[in-house]
């Protein structure tokens, strides 16, 4: 079957032959490999995307369920050139090591700042509770987002 949806502002149609996750379709059919697959069961958040304005794990969304919806990925959240404020804050705070979790964390943090421009430490932690980072111990990520929120880190 074919699935049509809006991807980062453009209409796309993808071929879906069998039950497959939206993550796999994004990566393998639509060549957007910024969203990462690390657990394939919604535990790590590496595949986080926005689906009709909701933060979701794309590994848990059936591709067929994306029909007619609006999908925004890390590629869509990144400016044409350079970095978004969330990305810039993380870059400056040293919040990227191996970087595998980073796209998912950027998506989750952008969603947080969209609805709450000055989140507290607790709000930052709760918003990112679904994103596992194995490298940083999260401290630099918290510092980055606290500084973006205007709190002294």
């Amino acid at each position, binding site marked *: 079957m074919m699935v049509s949806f809006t991807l980062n502002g453009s209409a796309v149609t993808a071929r879906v032959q069998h039950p*497959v996750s939206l993550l796999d379709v994004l990566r393998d059919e639509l060549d957007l490999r910024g969203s990462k697959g690390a657990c*394939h069961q919604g535990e790590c958040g590496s595949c986080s995307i926005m689906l009709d304005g909701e933060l979701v794990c794309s590994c848990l969304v059936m591709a067929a369920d994306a029909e007619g919806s609006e999908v925004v990925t890390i590629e869509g959240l990144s400016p044409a050139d350079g970095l978004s404020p969330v990305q810039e804050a993380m870059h400056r705070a040293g919040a990227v090591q191996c970087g595998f979790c980073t796209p998912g964390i950027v998506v989750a943090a952008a969603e947080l700042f969209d609805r709450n421009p000055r989140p507290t430490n607790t709000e930052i932690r709760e918003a990112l509770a679904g994103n596992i980072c194995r490298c940083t111990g999260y401290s630099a990520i918290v510092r980055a987002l606290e500084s973006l929120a205007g709190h002294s880190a």
Partner: protein
Amino acid sequence: MTAITRVRRVEVSGGVGESPLRPDGVPKLRGEFDYASDLWSEGMLWGATTRSPHPHARVVSVDIAPALAIGGVHAVLTAGDVPGRPVFGLEHPDQPVLASEVVRYWGEPVAIVAAEDEDTARAAAAAVRVEYEELEPLIDPEAADAVDSVFRRMRIRRGDQSADGPVVVEGYYEVGTQDQAPLGTEAGLAVPDGQGGVDLYATSQFVHVDHEQVVASLGIPEDQVRAHPTGIGGAFGAREDVNLHIHLCMLALHTGQPVKMVYRRSESFTGHVHRHPARMWYRHEADDDGRLVRVEAKILIDGGAYASTTAAVLANACYFAVGPYRCDSVSVDGTGAKTNNPPCGAMRGFGAVQVCFAYETQMDRLAERLGLDPLEVRRRNGLATGDRMPTTGQLIETPLPVSEVIDSLLSMPMPDEASGVSGLPGGSGLTTEAENVTRGVGYALGIKNLGFSEGADDYAQARVRLTEQGAVVETAAIEVGQGLVAVLAQIVRSVLGVSSAEVRHVDTSRIGSAGSSSASRQTQMSGGAAYEAARRLRQRILDGHDGDELDDRGVHRAGRLVMPMSRLAAEGWEETVTFRHPPTTETDEDGQGSPHADFAVAGHRAVVEVDSELGLVRVIRVDTAQDVGKAINPESVRGQIEGGILQGVGLAVMEELIIEGGRMKNPNFTDYLLPTILDAPDVEALLLEQEGSWGPFGAKGVGEPPTISSTAAVVAAIRDATGRALVRVPVRPEDIAL
């Protein structure tokens, strides 16, 4: 040895001691960085692996016909198709590329397939019909020890073996199996070159050792295989051993097409080695002042089915069995058991983690027995430069700031008594009532070697070239996330005197080995090679142009520019250096000798809040002081410390790969619990900079010490809060509440 000739640091932007932005930060943040799992090639096939469902069985027959019958399947290969050496291994080749007669662990590869898409490949791997005759698995490492099924035994005897003291503490300790759980799973792409050779782009910590093993098993000349450093999502020891590398190359050469393979998470758990589970018995004897008179230890680690690095991990566990403490009468017996459990090997801390949990618990018990403060008993015994290692007798020549670590921990402010709601055990779910919470504080110190040991010829090669874009550092050293890509450039800037410098990873055909990105070694080793290459290059350039200064503008003589950079770069200057650290020796039959090139110490103070009724623990804070030599990039050092501490916290309170009857019960992220941002403590770190003797600018390795004593400190804090003995990690709720 090719040592560093020390030179004055050139003042230059982005040099040593600064924390310039990571050059790979922007692509990683934009989702544009290519990891091995993102690689793509026109016309590529997907690979998949058929694995044993039994921990121990005879392979009666393998029928590949049902797999081949599936449309879109291009190849199904079994043991008989391995063209060269049928086994591989990081230190000792004992592991079949594909099992033939016997499978020795749950998940061992038996067949590999290549097909037109990933699902077809997995379906074909599942369709391979393997008939097994189950055998009794050997799963208890003590039983393995009893029947002499071992990879290595270690024996250390130092000093008067009849020494004794009036104060005795004895204990038995266990450490469960921890997984590195790097976020990126094993992945790779092999591309045939059409002339019988192959290019391999796969997750790795050490491409030259992959290359060596791939070449041996393919049975083709060395120059026919090129292993390329490739983007990887973390490592922590999991990527030292070959897993899919030989398989990918076999499939690519067999089909003549590029082949890609990506392990899913559950397969990743079976596809890489783990931290060794350990059982340890200790007896400490001290005088009435708490000074150690004798330490005895028996250490048993389970290496699983194949050798991997068990021999070296066991050696480390035994060499560091006493910790950073003086003692002149030591007896250590160690065994690395060979069982039918999943193979164990390298993980951050490499044997030093397990023993640290045991010896630090012993030190706390000694302090308690004597009514001493836990840090006071450590201070009375702390090693210092000029002492001998309690186990090997090796003279400690490097700065070893044990007493400074203790002073630093004491100087750091304690967190407020009142935690916010989110600080409570169970988090903001309000599982716990604030009045049921008890706070505890615990301390631990740890020590580890840096670089390869026991007489290994440890070296790293790097090349520094001058181009019109500035200096380029060529290396095969793997960037695992630690920030080497910034550190090597910083070193070259500060030595060469040129502010524009970048690191380029090149494949095994274009540069010599950098060794592994492990053992906390690359800043010292590849950093040492880059330092010395830059120094020689600068000297040659200045000599060649009779200059006295080199900077971004070019060569100067007496304040006048005599050779502009554009013309200088066009001259094609480059320098390649192979750096070696001071030689080490194997030890004798009593474990005596000088097996280590360098040491580093760190200490941790953990503050926890515990709900003893529910058995819930919240680690509020972990403060640390660490011996770093010289922080080349303070922000990256901090990143290693914060990340390493959380892995230590994970081992203390949640991370355990549960293996029953040789089978993994929780090989996924739902059941193998990793610390989230809500579990992460606040961390304050003091970097102790006493310059080491041979690293660039006095740098020491920093990656492993954060993971060594953080676990022990957290458990000490839980003991302080609960009064429980807690002799096993991870500490489970039932260990506290029941």
